[in-house]
């Protein structure tokens, strides 16, 4: 357990935070907490359902496009003069509908999720463009946009983190402490064997995609209100960032393995690295390179480790045999 991949990421995060606090001026301050968390919230949110989906051996590449479509919808509805709460509800519903669409194609029709969500990645982003075109809507209610950047007193923690934490706990408990979660791990390794113990493979997948759609919509709403700008290209390209963070958090791309604490550490590791580099005015070039290297290292390191152990073992065996 202690050497598993998610644990390694958690240690890496702890080590990095300590290092950064000591050696990077101004890193250890509530201001950092605030800005850093605001930056990672969209990834953090979407990473939750994504973790569950990847654990079942599937993937969802359309999340960022769903967020974009949500944002576009918000913009158009608000600009059309609708009540803001109704706007939010409908936008959330749009995400849910997108999730249902994905879920229908993947779970009900049994199509491969990688291929389907490449398709819906283009489709949902396209619909965002159709919805809002090249307009941007920015005049959201001040009180609301201010709320989305406000902090909890002097802690520096953004107020919206309360909601985010609820989402994290929800998915964490769902995955690790419920029969549903047990089923997901089973499915991840073998859909057939899972079906034989009565796990409703298709239905579970369907609900995961719906959840993914809903949470992506939340991320889209957060994005729109935090940046006070509803545009069709909001959050574009975020899917790869989310997947990178989830994989860094120790989730196996083949399914079956992974944990919410690990993913949390993965997201925060990339986020804090990112922020630390920005504080040090180190170019983003370094950031993407480091992100890539971390990702490679996180999967290669364990296999190098086991190769070395195996090699030692055989050498010892041969040695003993020789005597």
């Amino acid at each position, binding site marked *: 357990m202690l050497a598993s991949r998610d644990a390694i990421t958690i240690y890496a995060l702890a080590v990095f935070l300590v290092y950064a606090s000591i050696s990077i001026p101004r890193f250890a301050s509530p201001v950092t907490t605030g800005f850093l968390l605001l930056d990672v919230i969209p990834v953090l949110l979407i990473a939750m359902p994504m973790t569950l989906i990847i654990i079942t051996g599937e993937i969802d590449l359309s999340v960022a496009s769903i967020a974009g479509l949500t944002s576009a919808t918000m913009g158009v509805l608000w600009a059309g003069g609708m009540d803001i709460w109704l706007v939010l509800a409908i936008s959330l519903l749009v995400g849910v509908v997108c999730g249902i669409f994905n879920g229908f194609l993947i779970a009900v029709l049994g199509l*491969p999720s990688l*291929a389907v969500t490449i*398709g819906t*990645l*283009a489709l949902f982003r396209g619909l965002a*463009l159709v919805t809002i075109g090249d307009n941007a809507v920015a005049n959201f209610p001040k009180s609301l946009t201010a709320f989305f950047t406000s902090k909890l007193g002097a802690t520096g923690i953004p107020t919206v983190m309360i909601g985010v934490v609820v989402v994290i706990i929800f998915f964490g408990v769902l995955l690790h402490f419920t029969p549903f979660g047990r089923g997901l791990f089973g499915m991840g390794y073998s859909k057939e064997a899972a079906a034989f113990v009565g796990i409703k493979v298709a239905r579970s997948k369907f609900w995961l995609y719906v959840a993914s759609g809903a949470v992506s919509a939340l991320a889209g709403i957060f994005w729109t209100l935090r940046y006070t700008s509803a545009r069709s290209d909001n959050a574009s390209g975020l899917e790869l960032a989310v997947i*990178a963070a989830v994989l860094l958090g120790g989730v196996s*791309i083949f399914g079956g393995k992974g944990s919410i604490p690990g993913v949390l550490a993965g997201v925060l590791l990339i986020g804090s690295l990112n922020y630390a580099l920005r504080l040090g005015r180190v170019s*983003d070039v370094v950031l993407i390179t480091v992100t890539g290297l971390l990702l490679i290292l996180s999967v290669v390191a364990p296999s190098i480790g086991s190769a070395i152990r195996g090699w030692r073992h055989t050498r010892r065996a041969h040695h003993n045999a020789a005597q």
Partner: protein
Amino acid sequence: MNSALESRKSPNKQPSSRGWTAAAPVLRLRELPVFIALSVLVIVTYLINPLFLSAQGVKDLLLNATIVMILAVGQTLLIITRNIDLSVGSILGLVAFGTGSIFAAMPDIPIIAVFVIGMAFGVVLGAVNGILVTVAKVPALVITLGTLYVFRGLNNAWAGGKQYFAGDRPDAFGALSVDTFLGFPIITLVAVVVVIAVALYMSGTRPGRDLYAIGSDPDAATAFGIKVSKRVLLAFLANGALAGLAGVLYASRFNSVGATTGTGMELTVIAAAVVGGVAIFGGSGSVTGAALGALLLTTITSSLTAVRVDKFWQQAIVGILILAAIIIDRVASLRTAKKLRISEARNV
């Protein structure tokens, strides 16, 4: 031909079996729906806007498809072996910028040498992916997502704000993507040769068939004695070489090469393969299909513009097209499975 076999079968089983045998090539021709879609698209567009098939129009269509086509062929090699390369866009970018740099440093270098260097560079980058995947035995999706970032970072670090423009390169090099031979742009001919060569390799040679076996069940392939790591590594090298070739051609066709060249190309390339009927989990599909998929995807963009469909709809339509391709594929394979069940069932 296989009369020995058929005489063995019980009489009531023979007809349906024979039916399946005869239907097999047609049913398994996964390229067919793509081909039909492409034809319909071109014809309808032509009827609405005859300019679409003018000499220049055709040339543009082919040129647009060329680079994605070459990349899709390489990607298909990998997808068939149950691997994937998300870093192709970054490789293309690095090679394209490299091409610009070579011409800037040595304006008189023979063009063929540039192609060789570009492809060799691609092979080196492909080798990084391939070695990590095969030696460390880790999933290609994770590794190449990593190298997608790393290669892009290197490209940014190397290029910075520097860009090389068409004017920095010899005219003869740029002319490759302008001049035509029998109405075909020269670089498109290069792509067609690549497609044919790889298609023959995949369907007609033992190593090519091994790639299908590996993708169909990697463990079985190991147990059977197929040199899985070697073949997969070779597929990565080939994909690198093709991405390198695409990079050089990119530099020939487009105006500028710099830090961001090729960004975001990976999903288009994978989409082309998927549209062309390549199964995302390996084992089936063909490079011809992928090439047609690439042609279809790039043509649809041009065609929507040519018939003046609102540009905001274009991306959505591309998405619908991808989904349609997957669904058609699924329906076809379900029909095959059902046929098999019926043909093999006793008279129940």
